[in-house]
């Protein structure tokens, strides 16, 4: 295997899980997440020769976000799947599962753009100006979006039709 390829394999092994995780947070759907993360890495590899010394992770992240936001314009397709729906939690449910369910439902109550802002700002820890640039929105939009309240983890999450602005502590 060429040295370039070895470097890409090392890069992909190090960051693919994180990209996949981010894609899942952005889409809320396992299949779309896998498609988006794979697309991001495919395009990163296609451009690897010029990228490898110039922040390939940032490039892959930007491709991921662009791919997901481009998908907002396409009609949603239902995927036939053999996956068994997640089993109902047992009485002694793990905190992590509860927390994840809360998170996915809470993110699902946001608009797609709000969800992208939250993920870029608090998962990728990008500054507001970078979030604004990647999503092609104003910094003001980013600031106001990060003020959107999420339901408390202690209470049952409910879907909001029209989110209202309020300060997060």
């Amino acid at each position: 295997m060429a040295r370039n390829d070895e470097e890409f394999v090392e890069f992909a092994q190090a960051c693919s899980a994180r990209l996949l995780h981010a894609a899942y947070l952005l889409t809320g759907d396992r299949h779309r997440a896998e498609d988006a993360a794979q697309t991001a890495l495919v395009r990163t590899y296609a451009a690897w020769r010029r990228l490898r010394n110039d922040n390939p992770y940032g490039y892959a992240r930007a491709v991921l976000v662009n791919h997901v936001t481009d998908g907002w314009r396409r009609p949603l397709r239902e995927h036939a799947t053999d996956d068994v729906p997640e089993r109902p939690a047992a009485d002694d449910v793990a905190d992590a599962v509860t927390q994840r369910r809360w998170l996915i439902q809470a993110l699902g109550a946001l608009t797609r753009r709000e969800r992208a802002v939250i993920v870029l700002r608090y998962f990728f820890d990008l500054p507001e100006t970078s979030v604004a640039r990647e999503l092609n929105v104003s910094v003001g939009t980013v600031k106001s979006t990060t003020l959107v309240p999420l339901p408390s983890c202690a209470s049952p999450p409910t879907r909001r039709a029209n989110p209202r602005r309020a300060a997060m502590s």
Partner: protein
Amino acid sequence: MTDLDTLRSALHAPPRDVLGALDIEQVMSAGRRLRRRRQLLAASTVATATTAVFAVAAMALNTAPAQESGLPTASAEQAAAAAHNSDPSYTPSGEVIPTGMRVDGKDLVFFVTHLPETGTIGIVGALRDQFGTLTAKVITNEPRGVDDRSPGFHAAWTGHREISHLTYGYYVGPASKITAKFGGRTVEARQATWSEDPQVVIFWFDLVEPGAGEPSHLTAYDADGRRLPAGNNGFTRG
């Protein structure tokens, strides 16, 4: 712990029981195909042995431009000789569709190709020289996971690719007439059906000069003038 801390903690908790792992070998294989396709689209049009060209089946030669009225099947054409195909992912599926338009002394044509990396069809815009050599200039397709044969418009694209401003895509369904607005003016597209599937209608607008206005309001009508399902009728801009 603040709400923000709770949010960050929840965001960073890895969902291992939901997501699997990506196949890196598959990623690299698809990445190599994408890299070759990008190199192909940037290649010069000199017809040499090292130039990427396409296999073209022997067909009857027909230089007539596509008809405006009716719904003609793509005219059968005959190549002088089959050209070597160095990129199987761009092999024409079915017949090559002439547009009647000329760019830099070559014929602008379209053809359909199957894309293994997306599992969808792609519509390739290419220039064909006097020897039948095809040089791809642009390709548009639906992404992986999208039903590329669902009723309606698909992969509508507008932009520049060394051939002035090209606007094209395809429609799935009995479209007898396809229109779009350019700067508020309604323009009718030229169209032809794909020889492999007559439900797939490739459409294009005559090459327009810059300043004609961005295309919008892509609409299809059946033979009785009734509006057909729109599908994905937005344009991707290149």
